[in-house]
């Protein structure tokens, strides 16, 4: 059975991160499994985890005024899920549901914030990787919006 630091090292988000830091982050980590249909987190709840997706798929859903839920985005294997734990008020803006059997490593938010604040080098490295993922999500979400407008660009610039 592989230890959590070894599992983290295999994930693209942590590629190139030093062994010492991986061991440090593993101290915040737990292996978790979600069945299809099970919610990892719900809109409005306290954001207590940063999820490293190992296998499976997670749908990010928004609750609509009419009472239904719509899927905004899906995260696949080797992605990371959840931003709301990083800044106050630490509440999930949307819900995350396992679309199929899903295995994640959950990093406890309080532990993770503490480690990044006490070691600025780790904090910088982590935030760089995090920001890169968020910018890509932003780009993809903007393109989804354009798709809704019926625009299929050759170039989006």
């Amino acid at each position, binding site marked *: 059975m592989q230890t959590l630091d070894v599992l983290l090292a295999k994930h693209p988000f942590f590629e190139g991160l030093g062994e010492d830091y991986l061991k440090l982050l593993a101290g915040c980590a737990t292996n978790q499994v979600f069945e299809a249909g099970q919610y990892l987190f719900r809109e409005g709840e306290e954001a207590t985890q940063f999820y490293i997706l190992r296998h499976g798929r997670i749908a*990010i859903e*928004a609750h*609509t*005024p*009419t009472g239904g839920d*719509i899927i*905004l*985005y899906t995260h696949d294997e080797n992605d990371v899920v959840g*931003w709301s734990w*990083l*800044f106050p008020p630490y509440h999930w*803006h*949307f819900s995350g549901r396992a679309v199929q059997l899903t295995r994640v490593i959950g990093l406890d938010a309080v532990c993770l914030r503490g480690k*990044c*604040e006490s070691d*600025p*080098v780790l*904090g*910088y490295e982590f*935030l*760089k990787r*995090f*920001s*890169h993922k*968020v*910018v890509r*999500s*932003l*780009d993809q*979400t*903007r393109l*989804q*919006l*354009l798709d*809704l*407008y019926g*625009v*299929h*660009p*050759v*170039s*989006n*610039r």
Partner: protein
Amino acid sequence: MVSPELLRRYPFFSGLEDSHLKAIAMLTQEASSEKGKVIFEGDQPASILYFLIEGSVELHYIVVDKHNPQFRKDFYVGEINPGEPFGISAMIEPFCYTATAIASNPCRILQIEAGGLRSLCEEESGAAAVLMRQIARAVMTRLHETRVQLAAARA
């Protein structure tokens, strides 16, 4: 170069030590943009991190129709308000602007030379953590606003 005191006025630069503020001030110039001016274009190398002092800036995607390549259209994707950074891709690999920024009103802008700022971050972990945290906050806010737009459009 600008005065460090100018940077100190804004929450974006709070948490930085005096020496770091001085170093960033050395990399910064103040500029103005008239209404309608394109400040930077999407898909271009991101060599400057911008910070809006006064006025407003819109972010656009410029798309080209696949059946009619000479037909270009602007799609508004967001707005920058005073006290906010933009062109933040200058601090995030692959250092390429993802949208086009256009002054929607006359603006006063700070232009921070991104290569120097990234070097400062590599050398000074304290400054790096503070700045990257603010960058992350800005881009997360934009993602959240865009997801809300998407949810509203699909509801």
